[in-house]
């Protein structure tokens, strides 16, 4: 009897040991599955974040030179930048497009992103009615903080002066390529009557500063020292003017 009881106890212990081992193995398997699943989910989230930050999921072309630079009320760059450069431009002006496409990316990298300079955009409409239509479309984009994106993309697609290319379809094609811009809001804002007054103010300001062509760049130093340059300027000329107005 005693030996049978011992045998039973031994068998029970063996069964319990096997059950414990099985449970431990199952727990390990479950943990490994959770770990693998978690790593997969985390990797997916990280890839999506990287994709978003690199513009992979953004619609449209976007503007590389403007990435990471704050924009507000037509100003581009950090508000506390010591030097302000006011760019007087006409969206139909091919020389303005030349500057923006060829010189601006280096200027943005060296002076604006570093916080040395902030730029202000003043749009003029002296080349014809299409310039005014385009400028108002840019001002509507400016209300959402995308004036510089709009202008950059406009220049990339710029047509011949007063050839009638500045149609609604053309402008809508531009805003479609501005990542983050609310197109419905932009469409509604285009009819804002305040833009007429704003264009008049811009025009008066250009006359006051002696602007007689586009693009013109008014450099204003921290002490109020001014320098006006007109035409396509190189990043080097831009830097020289910044140094000049910054000097005491």
């Amino acid at each position, binding site marked *: 009897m005693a030996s049978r009881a011992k045998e039973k106890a031994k068998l029970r212990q063996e069964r319990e040991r096997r059950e414990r081992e099985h449970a431990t193995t199952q727990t390990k398997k479950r943990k490994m599955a959770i770990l693998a699943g*978690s790593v997969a989910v*985390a990797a997916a989230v990280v890839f999506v974040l990287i994709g978003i*930050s690199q513009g992979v999921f953004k619609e449209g072309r976007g503007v590389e030179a403007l990435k990471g630079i704050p924009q507000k009320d037509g100003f581009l760059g*950090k508000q506390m930048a010591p030097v302000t450069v006011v760019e007087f431009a006409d969206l139909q002006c091919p020389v303005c497009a030349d500057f923006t496409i060829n010189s601006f990316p280096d200027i943005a990298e060296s002076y604006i992103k570093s916080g040395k300079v902030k730029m202000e955009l003043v749009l003029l409409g002296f080349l014809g009615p299409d310039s005014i239509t385009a400028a108002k479309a840019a001002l509507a984009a400016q209300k959402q903080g995308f004036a510089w994106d709009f202008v950059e993309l406009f220049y990339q697609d710029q047509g011949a002066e007063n050839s009638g290319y500045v149609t609604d379809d053309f402008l809508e094609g531009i805003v479609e390529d501005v990542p983050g811009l609310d197109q419905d809001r932009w469409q509604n804002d285009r009819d804002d009557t305040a833009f007429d007054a704003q264009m008049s103010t811009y025009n008066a300001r250009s006359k006051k500063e002696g602007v007689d062509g586009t693009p013109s760049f008014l450099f204003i130093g921290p002490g109020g020292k001014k320098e006006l340059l007109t035409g396509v300027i190189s990043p080097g000329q831009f830097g020289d003017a910044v140094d000049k107005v910054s000097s005491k």
Partner: protein
Amino acid sequence: MSERKLRIAIAVTSAIGIAISAYLTYIHYAEISPICTVGGSCEKVQSSSYAMVIGLPVAVVGLGGDILILLSALLRTQIARYAGFMLALIGFGFTIYLTYLELFVIHAICQWCVAHAVVITALLVLTAIRFFKEPQA
């Protein structure tokens, strides 16, 4: 390490992460240069086009993550343990990407980013131990 000690360690480490992220968020919005012992590298990294993600400064995203990990340490549920681990895992993955950018794309190292990378690595280890450890009766 007991559950209580792990929670305290996670809370303290995430608080350090919050302090770093909050400082970088402050200097972003105040438009000032970060205190940097390696000549100008922090500013170069902070002003690079990679300093923004989902339309927000990276520091703000990091701050949000650190706060959530801290909150997970305050709760004792299994969901909180898992959430803390997942957040730290995602943060760690994104930190690897950001460190790669610093080394091979921006060619500048920001000491604040390195400090936060150390914090998030420590948080990953702590939250993983907390989640995978058998809960004590």
